């Protein structure tokens, strides 16, 4: 077997559309999973905060989901939802729930009681207080959670290739089947690059939205 360079630039040059298509699908999958996760986790976190008895159940259940290895979770879903986009997104969204819900809870808990008192004193009803006072103050933690959830999801999508869903994982599979290094290396580098770009972008968004906070860790 002739030796294979780790990156065959000729191949890369002639296969840009293939790579871009994979990248595009990867971004799409990420966007849907994180958005869906937020839509579920935000109310979930608010409930867990508002009714402390729910706090542990919510975090425990999402925590258990998070701990289940992704290939196993997809394997659980396949007999019911098939080898489909839906299966992948259900799995991916589940993994964002712990991170997002936990950060929503922590964010809300970090609002100083004085401010809550002041808001009550100013006449805010509970719901209005939540929307106009608590959530904005919880935003740094929530943003931090979105960042971690996004980076995590980007890494996990490569595994969805094993149930036939696209993204950069397709290139990894191609590299494996054809004993070919280049698509594999390209996919790995792009995956890491995508994650870092996403993280930086979201950090920038965070700075715009909540300029008074920096460096809140998830």
């Amino acid at each position: 077997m002739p030796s294979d360079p780790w990156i065959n630039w000729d191949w890369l040059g002639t296969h840009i559309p293939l790579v871009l298509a994979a990248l595009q699908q990867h971004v799409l999958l990420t966007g849907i999973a994180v958005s869906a996760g937020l839509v579920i986790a935000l109310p979930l976190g608010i409930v867990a905060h508002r009714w402390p008895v729910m706090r542990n159940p919510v975090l425990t259940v999402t925590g258990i989901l998070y701990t289940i290895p992704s290939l196993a979770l997809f394997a659980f879903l396949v007999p019911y939802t098939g080898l489909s986009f839906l299966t992948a997104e259900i799995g991916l969204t589940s993994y964002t729930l712990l991170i997002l819900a936990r950060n929503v809870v922590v964010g809300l808990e970090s609002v100083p009681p004085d401010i809550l008192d002041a808001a009550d004193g100013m006449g805010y009803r509970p719901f209005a207080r939540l929307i106009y006072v608590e959530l904005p103050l919880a935003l740094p933690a929530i943003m931090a959670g979105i960042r971690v959830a996004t980076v995590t999801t980007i890494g996990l999508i490569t595994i969805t290739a094993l149930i036939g869903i696209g993204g950069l994982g397709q290139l990894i599979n191609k590299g494996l089947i054809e004993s070919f290094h280049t698509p594999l290396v390209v996919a790995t580098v792009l995956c890491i690059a995508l994650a870092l770009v996403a993280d930086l972008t979201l950090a920038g968004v965070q700075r715009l939205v909540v300029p008074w906070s920096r460096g809140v860790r998830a």
Partner: protein
Amino acid sequence: MTFLMQCARWLTDPAHWQGPDGIPIRLAQHVQLSAEAVALGALIALPIGILLGHFGRFGNLAINISNVGRAIPSFAILVIAFQAFGLGDTPIILALTALAIPPMVTNSYVALREVDADIKEAARGMGYRELAQLVRVELPLAVPLIMAGIRTSAVQVVATATLAAIVAGGGLGRYIVDGFATQIYTKVFAGALLVALLALATELSLAALQRALTPRGLRSLNAPASRRATSFKTA
């Protein structure tokens, strides 16, 4: 309900508990791969994180290594290891170790940083020299967070070891991969269940270990969730 009952039957079939493809052997393989990777990773990551944390150097690197580590596609790393080093357990363990290192570095770094400056000053005042201070004062206080890092790594390694079957590795992932190939979905489901249980068992037992190793005085300080330095999922 019949599908789940079939899976239950697969799990209770004595034939599946014997032989080289039996549950005990696959479980043992899975645990062995994971344990070796975490141990090797800890051997590398803990000294680095602890020393960086103690001296307060390269903080950004130590914290951001987890960000990068989280972004590494675990499936790709396994395949790269296979293509670079061939078949066998060693390439798999190398790949798993690479994934195990980031959370342990970050957590041990943060653990050491968070030791109260006053305590360190008091120790210095009491005459502790550098190494003694590190070992006898800082490390015991840092144990909870260091253990959290090891625990995070361990759970992720167990999850990623499931993928080892794709590059001809052993372990519980074999049931999932082989089951898909032969369309025996009860096998796939049973394998997935075993893997999920193993991951949960790892998380719970190491959490208990973490609690046991936490000095009693610290145990009463119920650290809020945000104190967990990294949440890390690669598989």
